[in-house]
């Protein structure tokens, strides 16, 4: 399998609450054998050692797979069975030749002599390597009343973790409790090959402890992109009644705490902007509000395009993102088109390990604020360059052709269906279109293609061509193609055509309706002057310049 294939499989596998251990082991092994020359630059490498007092064979391979889910490539070392003491005390051991950056100590209370044994081990490890040391806390069971061995051991490691910046305690007891201690710890597998942790628990365990791999490798995620419908709230904004929409308070509170630690929150959701904003700003049960998000992309564009834009505007690499959406389609889209993003279900957010970092700074706590300030200042600049770049990558090509017999039906249909980006909302049947052509009016269809596919005809332009002043009767675009500067292309085209025909001015009206707010700023954005305005319409005009040129990031055919 290629690296990309393994990466995809790992990402898809971790959608399940309990991925199958045999698959995880197999993927971890494939990773170790994969051609390293194809590993992308955003993947960071670390070396992780596992020292255990019982059998954890298979765990390192599963750990490799879990680490890759968050863009970390882990080389792993497994100390020989129950030789954790020897490996640590012997300077020539395989452990020191391996030279780990991260070491996991997984010790059963039965196999540790006393507190000083434990302390010696940890201190030696710290002295002989630069490794971070993660110690599983000790499991008590079958302890006689008053037997304080385990609590004392746990006290010792707690004290060590507070004193030493490189020592951390993994709450293994909490893992057992959350996942069913009897099904995992000291099952019958303990008698078979000394697997005191049931191998079936390895994927969940590896996923949980991979947080230190993320932190050590510097791969900590910086931004969570959330969907809205059935993710941040139950229900669909714009379709379900406002009162029936139920905000997911637990999830939102969790996200608030994430933000409090310096993570950024963003939204990528397919809704009418106003419908979504109504819930976001005015629903009484929302814990999060618009101000809590560093970036919002609420429109009908494909989510991968929007997330790319978010990354560019926030000036973050795509590898620092995690994306949560209830829709398997959207998750798979992002998994495929943006593999460096960790894709999870909304339910998996609270246990997601990718935001773990070692040591928070004051800057982390302020990051959200800083972004908001920066955003206000640089909004135009950032937006401009980022849109160009990703449009360029999009390989967008726009074709503007005169209406012909075959395209009249589609043209007519668009005038009847299109509400949002429609300057005048004039509805025309096929006969109307034919009559306009007979009268000498000019009608063009606008179609578009990009690297993801062909949109077909998605825009219409109808001109009443007087000798010196062309009038835009209709200019509309399907909402699918908004946000790609196609309307600017049409403007440039119309002006070039008008010039060719000897006109000196081009004018048009904007007739506001309940739905066409997206088109309200079109005229001013391309430099038309407002001539007059009354209750029902605004009239604009543009005096033609000598020449017009298309931007280089879009291909135009006409």
């Amino acid at each position, binding site marked *: 399998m290629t690296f990309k294939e393994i990466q995809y499989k790992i990402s898809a596998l971790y959608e399940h609450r309990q991925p*199958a*251990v*045999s698959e995880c*082991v*197999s993927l971890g092994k494939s990773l170790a054998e994969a051609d390293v020359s194809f590993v992308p630059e955003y993947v960071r490498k670390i070396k992780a050692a596992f020292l255990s007092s019982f059998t954890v*064979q*298979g765990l390192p391979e599963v750990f490799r797979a879990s680490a890759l889910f968050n863009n970390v490539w882990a080389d792993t070392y497994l100390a020989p069975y129950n030789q954790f003491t020897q490996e640590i005390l012997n300077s020539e051991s395989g452990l020191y030749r391996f030279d780990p950056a991260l070491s996991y100590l997984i010790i059963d209370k039965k196999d540790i002599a006393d507190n000083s044994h434990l302390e010696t081990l940890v201190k030696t490890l710290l002295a002989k390597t630069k490794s971070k040391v993660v110690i599983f806390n000790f499991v008590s069971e079958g302890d006689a009343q008053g037997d304080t061995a385990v609590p004392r051991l746990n006290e010792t490691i707690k004290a060590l973790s507070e004193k030493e910046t490189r020592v951390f305690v993994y709450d293994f007891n909490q893992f057992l409790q959350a996942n069913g201690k009897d099904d995992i710890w000291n099952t*019958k*597998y303990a*008698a*078979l*090959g000394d*697997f005191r942790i*049931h*191998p*079936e628990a390895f994927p969940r365990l590896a996923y949980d402890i991979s947080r230190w791999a993320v932190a050590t490798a510097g791969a900590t995620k910086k931004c969570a992109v959330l969907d809205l419908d059935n993710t941040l709230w139950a229900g669909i904004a714009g379709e379900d009644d406002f009162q029936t929409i139920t905000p997911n308070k637990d999830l939102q509170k969790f996200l608030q705490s994430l933000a409090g630690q310096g993570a950024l929150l963003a939204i990528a959701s397919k809704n009418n902007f106003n419908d979504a904003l109504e819930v976001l700003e005015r629903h009484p049960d929302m814990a999060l509000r618009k101000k809590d998000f560093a970036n919002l992309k609420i429109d009908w564009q494909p989510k991968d395009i929007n997330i790319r834009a978010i990354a560019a505007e926030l000036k973050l690499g795509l590898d620092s993102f995690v994306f949560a959406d209830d829709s398997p389609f959207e998750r798979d889209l992002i998994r495929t088109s943006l593999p460096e993003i960790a894709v999870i279900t909304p339910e998996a957010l609270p246990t997601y390990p990718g935001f773990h970092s070692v040591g928070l700074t004051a800057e982390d706590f302020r990051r959200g604020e800083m972004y908001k300030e920066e955003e206000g200042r640089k909004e135009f600049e950032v937006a401009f360059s980022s849109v160009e770049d990703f449009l360029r990558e999009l390989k967008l090509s726009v074709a503007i052709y005169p209406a012909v017999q075959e395209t009249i039906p589609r043209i007519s249909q668009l005038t009847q269906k299109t509400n949002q980006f429609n300057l005048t909302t004039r509805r025309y049947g096929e006969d109307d279109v034919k009559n306009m052509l007979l009268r000498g009016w000019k009608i063009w269809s606008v179609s578009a293609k990009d690297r993801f596919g062909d949109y077909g005809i998605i825009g219409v332009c109808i001109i009443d061509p007087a000798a010196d002043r062309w009038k835009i009767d209709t200019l509309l675009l399907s909402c699918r193609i908004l946000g790609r500067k196609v309307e600017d292309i049409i403007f440039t085209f119309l002006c070039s055509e008008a010039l060719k025909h000897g006109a000196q001015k081009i004018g048009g009206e904007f007739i506001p309706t309940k739905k066409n707010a997206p088109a309200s700023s079109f005229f001013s954005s391309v430099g038309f002057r407002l001539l007059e305005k009354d209750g029902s319409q605004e009239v604009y005009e543009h005096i033609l310049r000598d020449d017009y040129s298309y931007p280089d990031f879009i291909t135009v055919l006409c």
Partner: protein
Amino acid sequence: MLTLEKIIAKVLSADESLITDEAGPGSIASWDSFNALLLVAELEKNFNVKFTLEEIIIVKTVADIKKILKNHGIA
């Protein structure tokens, strides 16, 4: 529900054609003690049974597995 041979082949990452009645740790390289445990887990999950320690220890071939499954009411 997958067949026994398919499950074994999957866990061992081996070709299904190798999973004959006589196959076992001796004949298939990937049938080591670790994979043997994963196999137990998969079989228990797939056939909804629980094997005892004694049953697990005595298995030497695929035929042995079939015998044990039969004892649990699985043909």
